[in-house]
């Protein structure tokens, strides 16, 4: 079945199953993150975590346009990217709890999930820290002729880091298959991006020869459409692109950032949640397009919730690594 989308965002040939898969991924991320918050509140999770709630359409819209063998790099706010690229929640939770069954055997934690099987080169706790890795992966793909594309996710805060421009310049010079995806959720921690970002965001790609565009990051169809175009472009060898996604994080910078009024208003938060929720809006569209119906979506949500719960339980029950493992994996 082919879906006719509305004027602004024509994507031909998208099958209903694909939209449903996309929806399920978004719900999976939302449920995952709600559980992370709960684990934190119940003091079951060591350390902190940065929730992706509100931004699901970006990771899912982009990754839906990628193959499993394509690469991504992620950030401190990386759970959504990892799940969107195909990570399974049980091993993710296990990692967040520092368990042996986690993706990194407990060594990485929330900010360092990595997984060769899904092309995940790793989340990165250094803002801008994965730009070099992503661009280098694109160099490999080009040199080895594998046709893989790399997506480098980062927040608008990373626009402060010079290394980003160094590698954009290189990617443009060498026409590398890499897409720089900037998630502009308006805040670098507790500071509004307008206080940290002079000039024009899109111009920052263009100035280095990287084709730049922006998209409504709350609209998964728009993100998906843009991603498909840019991924195809990259795969054809036409070089790097820079995509700014306008989005919003519903929660604090991290799970412990509860009192936020000194840097943003409750009203602003409320507006984004009510008007801009990527999951609700997409659900409404799917129902309207008869791709699904309210009951089916609710059913799906229940399923995902049950799966998530099971994944949490798996992680809680899983054993910690043995202390002797601390000095394993330092060298390959």
């Amino acid at each position, binding site marked *: 079945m082919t879906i006719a989308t509305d004027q602004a965002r024509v994507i031909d040939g998208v099958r209903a199953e694909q939209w449903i898969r996309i929806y399920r991924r978004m719900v999976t991320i939302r449920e995952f993150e709600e559980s992370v918050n709960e684990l934190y509140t119940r003091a079951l999770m060591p350390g*902190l975590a940065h929730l992706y709630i509100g931004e699901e359409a970006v990771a899912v819209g982009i990754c839906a346009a990628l193959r499993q063998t394509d690469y991504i790099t992620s950030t401190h706010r990386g759970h959504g990217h990892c799940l969107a690229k195909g990570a399974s929640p049980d091993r993710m939770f296990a990692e967040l709890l520092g368990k042996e069954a986690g993706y990194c055997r407990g060594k990485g*934690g929330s900010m360092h999930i990595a997984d060769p099987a899904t092309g995940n080169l790793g989340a990165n706790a250094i803002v801008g820290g994965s730009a070099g890795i992503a661009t280098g992966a694109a160099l490999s793909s080009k040199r080895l002729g594998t046709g893989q594309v790399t997506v480098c996710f980062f927040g608008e805060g990373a626009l402060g880091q010079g290394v980003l421009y160094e590698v954009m310049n290189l990617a443009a010079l060498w026409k590398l298959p890499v897409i720089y995806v900037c998630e502009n959720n308006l805040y670098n*921690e507790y500071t509004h991006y307008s206080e940290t970002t002079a000039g024009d965001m899109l111009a920052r790609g263009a100035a280095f020869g990287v084709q730049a565009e922006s998209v409504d990051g709350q609209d998964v169809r728009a993100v998906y459409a843009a991603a498909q175009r840019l991924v195809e472009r990259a795969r054809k060898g036409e070089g790097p692109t820079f995509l700014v996604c306008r989005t919003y994080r519903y929660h604090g910078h991290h799970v412990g950032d509860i009192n936020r009024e000194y840097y943003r208003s409750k009203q602003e938060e409320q507006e984004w949640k009510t008007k801009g929720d990527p999951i609700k809006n997409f659900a409404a569209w799917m129902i309207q397009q008869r791709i699904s119906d309210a009951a089916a979506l609710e059913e799906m949500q229940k399923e995902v919730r049950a799966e998530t719960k099971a994944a949490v339980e798996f992680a809680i029950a899983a054993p910690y690594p043995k202390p002797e493992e601390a000095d394993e994996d330092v060298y390959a």
Partner: protein
Amino acid sequence: MPEVAVRELTFAQAVREALAEEMRRDKRVCIFGEDVAEAGTPFKVLSGLVEEFGCERVLDTPISEAGFTGMGVGAAMTGLRPVVDIMFGDFLTLTMDQLVNQAAKVHYMSGGTWKVPMVLRTTLGATRRSAAQHSQSLHAWLSHVPGLKVAMPSTPYDAKGLLKTAIRDENPVIFFEDKMMYKLKGSVPEGEYTIPFGVADVKREGEDVTIVATSSMVQVALGAAEMLEKIGVSAEVIDPRTTWPLDEKTLVESAKKTSRAIVVEEGYGRYGVTGEMASVIAEGAFYSLDTPVKRMGAMHVPIPFSPPLEDVTVPTEQTVFEAARAMCGKA
């Protein structure tokens, strides 16, 4: 002498008070870094400063560690006294060119004509469950570099006194605060005092073994010393307070007295601070030592996230206690 009120302050409060006092005293002192103003840093160390001194003197920057550290160098050369805030010591990696090729060398390369009176405050320390990129203690690198000074307070009292000295120093000073100590309380007198660089502090006197420790490892050493006392071992705990300049004499004299020495550090054990201090002691107290100097640093691994793994990577009261006990021949 007028009586000086002594209060209990946290380490974070002591740091903040030092900054506030120096900013009141000297209009040239200013702060810049990420989320230093309204947010007062993620650790809330700077809360209240922007309210008192305004956003002209407490400046939020973009996430550009190299850039604003470099600006600190230029600002220091031309009349300001910047205190640059690098949120986590792990991000020093991004500032090394500005610190090492610029700040440390400007005075020398210019034949003594330009000066860089800048302070860079940052953190060190593991066991916060923050994993490998937010847990490193990289002070050995800076201590290795001529032209820089490096301070490592271990108590609220020292934090305040050393930071005031750092701000008044005419050279670039790297100031390391253990993020796990921010809530540690200790007595801090009201009013003015500074602590000279290069003067070690004997945190506890003892006869049987010298434990040299830096930053929060001083607290660990003091805990171990209490445990040792219970088994009849008298440990002397020495805190060099600055790794550069280094008070070699105090380290060596103590080791001569006790004839045994342990160096406890949260930086990596290899090619770092433990090697330097152990060498200084091994050389200076060569004819007095009963046994080799024992080095205890962080395990030679990236800091792992998982608590049972992370906990074994750094010295603890228990491991220091055991090392000292073995060294003193107590079974």
